[in-house]
């Protein structure tokens, strides 16, 4: 690989990084409040579908992005209702969403577009710039800005302090009259909304259409990025860049090698990278203390 190709991989990884970064940053916020959402994969998939639908029939890419955001918000609300208010098992709720999303979007694709594989293309793409001949959406830059905003929210604002307090010691927060439920609801909805944006990015922005099971594990990679980050939005951004680079590297080799069997091997790079990164970073000590635990006042 020469310098030009390396730079090309770098540009490709910007696009690959974006959905993981948006999802992981959102999940950092949710997990800091004590709610884990492993249904991110499902949110990505459902919002990818709904945003294509809105993009095709309602108002192009702006309607698509709005729809993606709204879908993520509602699914975040659903998860919060189960995890925070009904005090259900957060892992089971997430698994349920993932399974429902996989089946539901495939079925909906068949119902609306007459085949199980994919939707038509959304005609107009969101604004972008071109670097080395590659399209780079403005959403890529938005994702970076959002990561910094999330950091600012958690570290510099009153709301952020409250989110961290309910995630680490809900009893102490409760003793100060901070509503554990409302704070967790807010954080979970924020996390869901960002995953919704990420889903929309994948379909209407990066690919231009919905493809069956197109999230391809990115929701889980985002969860890995959260653990890698030590529950910090900027760390999550860094993790996403690493995973995005692995993804881009896989695509680069699969194109240049030309051998189809090898191509599949190269596609495994980001997943193996995820495994290694998570294994190498034993940051459990930084995990929010009350993560995954429903709160009930004595």
């Amino acid at each position, binding site marked *: 690989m020469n310098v030009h190709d390396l730079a090309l991989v770098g540009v490709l990884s910007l696009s690959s990084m974006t959905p993981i970064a948006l999802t992981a940053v959102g999940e950092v916020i949710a997990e800091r409040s004590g709610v884990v959402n492993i249904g991110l994969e499902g949110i990505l998939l459902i919002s990818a579908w709904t945003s294509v639908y809105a993009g095709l029939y309602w108002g192009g890419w702006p309607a698509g992005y709005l729809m993606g955001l709204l879908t993520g918000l509602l699914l975040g609300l659903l998860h919060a209702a189960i995890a925070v208010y009904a005090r259900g098992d957060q892992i089971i709720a997430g698994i349920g969403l993932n399974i429902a999303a996989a089946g539901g979007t495939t079925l909906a694709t068949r119902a609306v577009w007459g085949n199980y594989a994919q939707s038509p293309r959304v005609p107009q793409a969101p604004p972008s710039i071109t670097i080395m001949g590659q399209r780079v959406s403005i959403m890529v830059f938005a994702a970076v800005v959002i990561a910094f905003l999330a950091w600012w929210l958690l570290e510099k604002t009153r709301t952020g302090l*409250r989110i*961290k307090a309910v995630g*680490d010691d809900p009893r102490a927060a409760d*003793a*100060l*009259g901070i509503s554990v439920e409302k704070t967790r609801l807010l954080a979970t909805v924020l996390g869901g909304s960002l995953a919704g944006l990420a889903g929309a990015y994948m379909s209407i922005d990066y690919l231009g259409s919905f493809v069956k099971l197109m999230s391809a594990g990115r929701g889980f990679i985002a969860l890995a990025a959260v653990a890698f980050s030590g529950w910090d939005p900027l760390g999550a951004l860094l993790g996403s860049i690493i995973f995005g680079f692995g993804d881009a590297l896989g695509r680069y080799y699969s194109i240049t090698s030309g051998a189809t069997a090898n191509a599949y091997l190269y596609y495994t790079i980001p997943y193996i990278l995820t495994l290694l990164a998570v294994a190498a970073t034993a940051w459990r000590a930084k995990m929010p203390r009350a993560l995954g635990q429903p709160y009930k006042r004595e």
Partner: protein
Amino acid sequence: MPEPIVELRGIVKVYPDGVKALDGVDLRLYPGLVHAILGENGAGKTTLMRILYGEIRPTRGEIIIRGRRVRLRSTVDGIRNGIAMVYQHPRLVPTLTVRENILLYFHSAGIDPGELEERLRRAQEITGFSAPLDERVEDLPVGVRQRVDILRGIAAGARVLILDEPTTNLSPIEVEGLMNAIKGMKREGIAIAYITHRLPEVMEIADTVTVLRKGRVVASEVDPRSLGEEGLARLMVGEVPPPPPKERGKRLGEPVLRIHGLRARGKIEVYIDELVVREGEVLGVAGVEGNGQDELVAAIVGYGERLEGWVEVLGRRNPSPREFYKIGGAYIPGDRRKALALFFSVAENLAFLRYAHEGPALLTPGRLVALYREVAEEYNVVAGSPWAPVRSLSGGNQQKLLVGSQLHMKPRLLVAVNPTRGLDVATTRYVRGLIAGLASRGAGVLLVSTDLDEILEVSDRIAVISRGRIAGVLSPEEATPEKLGLLMGGGR
């Protein structure tokens, strides 16, 4: 007396499970005075204070602050009415810094964070405490956390400070610092509610005392100096009926439990110099909860850490839990959910409990049913079927199952913790009879209980545990309420 800052009138609190924690309590707090609220565990002290702080709502009754009737919907209302509460275990977020914890409080109090430094300086002047602002709370010792908790309340302008058993986790030097801070706050005209069951502290710091027993006020605004520790102890514990006559001149056999120089650590550190239980006697261990009972029992049964010294059960030094059961020990934990698998059947639970004593055996349904029949018949367990899940049994039957499973093994040493807590009168009497009967047949019993009636009724000797030490060993005749209350409260 000056005008009260806070007045509670006729406070009643009934919990959703029907327990009446408070039954018409009146209380007044005055500026610049320390009002001690004295009572045993479960007397309702903490419930009353949580109501004043706005954390829980009273079922009935009025709260009047500075002459105005208020309704406290949450702790935010409590804080904004100038009430600060320092819990026994400070409610600070451990992963945040001291500064962030203070900011959280200021947010709830509606105070501009920009005033933090200035207000904190003032609070430090009043209390004599200082706080490392940029340290994470979990890196600080418990005593310092409590100081942070007090400081942030005072800095936020609290005029009423509630201290819930504040000396529990403090070293003697830290206690002195706390007493000095209280004097400083008194000079500022801050009203202090001091919840405790420790009599010497009341004598030292309190200007006036209200005594609660079982959710009622038994003495209101009395002068601690005129009553003395004995008088307060009698009010706190109540008149205990004389114990029923015991067999005189019971012949005691060999020791079944000996403890020597034992140092153990759990929530608190425990040191037991000498303690012996002989065949044929019940040794009662009385004390307020959390004074080292759990640590003592854990060290005897073997699942706790023994740092120094030894425990000898039936001739074996420092047995593991497995050995403890194997050589003839039996154990009834204070929380039966620790011993019973609630979703498993009665027969399966019996098999578990028996396994600890006897080791592996084939668990055929026939054997399980036979075991169930023996135990259920002998100990009046009403279960319906051997295959009924334990959670479908009433609390009393669960307890009889647990007690029965242990006594069925014919143990030579029984360690029982609060064996009748939460049981009705008839079952209580039945279980106490079983325990006394076991001793009269020649086994030794260590009965750890926070229920003084139980201790007095069943024990042949009574050891009082206080702050991890045996404060004294008495015969039932010597054990007057005054004396027990004094020893339990750490008096002399």
